[in-house]
């Protein structure tokens, strides 16, 4: 028990002393996750709105595929992209393996179905009179999408926050594609895994606490968004 409490205290002092090493890792993690979230959002939100607003053949099947992708194990994405990006893979000469870009691509792919699904749910739960009203007022497909996003912006922002939360807590793909290179691709989750296996429990714990704080902050934001 002493071991645990001592480690916890050491972790706190690491956080409060603004240990440069720790904050570099946090910064890497946050910037990778934000970039991945923005890229995924740029694609998932319009796609989600378009899918919610249109009826087409195969819509239900597509919905099933999206639901399946939402629970796709992250190591599988890591594995597939590893195959693509490794020297012998089809995209090997791009030199992406073990770079932040590779991690960003993996995280974006991982959270795309989540964000798209949540966007679909957001539009479907909007007032049923919203779309007919906009159409009767002359909205065309592009302006319709813009105004539907505007009217459901809180729910769509919640989709963004959820995606970011998933990306920052992800470890499998980040490890396989980033390679956990210090100061380059070392994220909070991969660092925790490494430090713990090295026996550096304090550092791992400090990062874990910070990750928890981020998760709390995100959840508070989410519940605040749901209220508005």
């Amino acid at each position, binding site marked *: 028990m002493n071991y645990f409490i001592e480690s916890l205290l050491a972790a706190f002092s690491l956080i409060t002393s603004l240990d440069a090493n720790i904050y570099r890792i946090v910064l890497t993690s946050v910037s990778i996750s934000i970039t991945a979230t923005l890229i995924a959002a740029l694609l998932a939100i319009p796609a989600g709105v378009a899918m919610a607003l249109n009826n087409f053949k195969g819509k239900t099947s597509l919905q099933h595929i999206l639901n399946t992708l939402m629970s796709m194990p992250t190591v599988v994405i890591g594995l597939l992209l590893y195959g693509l990006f490794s020297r012998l893979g089809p995209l090997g000469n791009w030199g992406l393996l073990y770079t932040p870009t590779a991690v960003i691509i993996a995280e974006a792919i991982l959270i795309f179905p989540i964000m798209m699904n949540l966007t679909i749910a957001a539009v479907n739960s909007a*007032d049923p*009179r*919203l779309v*007919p*009203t*906009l*159409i*009767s*007022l*002359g*909205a*065309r497909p592009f*302006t319709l999408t813009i*105004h539907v996003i*505007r*009217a459901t912006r809180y729910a769509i922002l919640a989709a963004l926050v959820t995606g970011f939360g998933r990306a920052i807590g992800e470890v499998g793909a980040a490890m396989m594609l980033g390679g956990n290179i210090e100061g380059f691709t070392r994220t909070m989750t991969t660092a925790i895994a490494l430090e713990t296996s090295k026996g550096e429990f304090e550092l791992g714990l400090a990062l874990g606490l910070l990750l928890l704080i981020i998760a709390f902050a995100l959840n508070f934001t989410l519940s605040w968004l749901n209220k508005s």
Partner: protein
Amino acid sequence: MTSAYKLSDITLKPQNKIILTIPQLTVNSGQCLALLGENGAGKTSLINLLAFTHRANHGSIRLFDQVVGSKLKPSQRRRIGLVHQQPYLLPGTVADNIRLALSLQGVKRLHIPELTQQALKQVNLIALADQAANTLSGGELKRVAIARAIAYQPDILLLDEPFSHLDHRHIQLLEDSINHFAQQKGKTVIFSTHDRFQAQALASATINLVAGKITASPLLNHYHGKLDQHFFDTGKMIIHVTSELTYARHLAVDPREIIVSPQPLKSSMRNSFSGRLILIAEEGHAIRLTIQCAERFHVIISPEALASLNLSLGDTIWLSFKSTAVTVF
């Protein structure tokens, strides 16, 4: 005279249940029309078809003598203003909603402030311009929705049940707003209602809708039942009809074609019933009598006829009408 709408051969059947069948309907421009029918008769569906927010499964609608393709052109969309039964206002202020409609319709930015003011003035709501849309009362909401629909100066204004759930004062204000638009030259107004008096107060003509079909006669004497050759059985009485139809579920008797007499008439008329006079009411420039026979009948007569008949409530009187005064469908 140009026609605002020309419908032909329309069938609307979402999920294989027929909601509307309209073989032919022309609406002349410059008219104020009431769409009269009970709940579920298809009024909202017809309004949505006319607004092109829903499409019929079969048939075509011409808008100002132009065929409408699979997509309504923006220039055609701009000619139609639609007010839903429970209008939806977007987040923001009253003026925001009107500005949004103007910009969606492609009105030049330069003209938006002026047209916004003009629209609010027409519904007498300038004072509410900066109020948040979600704080409006039911009556104000409808008038804002009208302002939003007429802001871009459409040629047609469609209103779905504009007067439902409103108190008398707000109905009056709403009528003023609609009248203000209708009196402009060449403007067409179509509104749905289940209230005959409301229809007569505002409209110059009515379209009667029963179970998804347009009927010629006003829906005063409307009965459900079964047609068997030349007899229609309502369950309470049998009425003679002349119709080539072999199947019909509805029957309507034109209230102006019924003759009232204190004694049975000797005539060629096939239908003759007696009943108790239970209501005498003034309706516009005419008199409406309600007579309780096996079914309840309404008859419209002139004030002069009322005076000469010397009727009083509770009298037993005779009703006679030709089988050609009867429509079955």
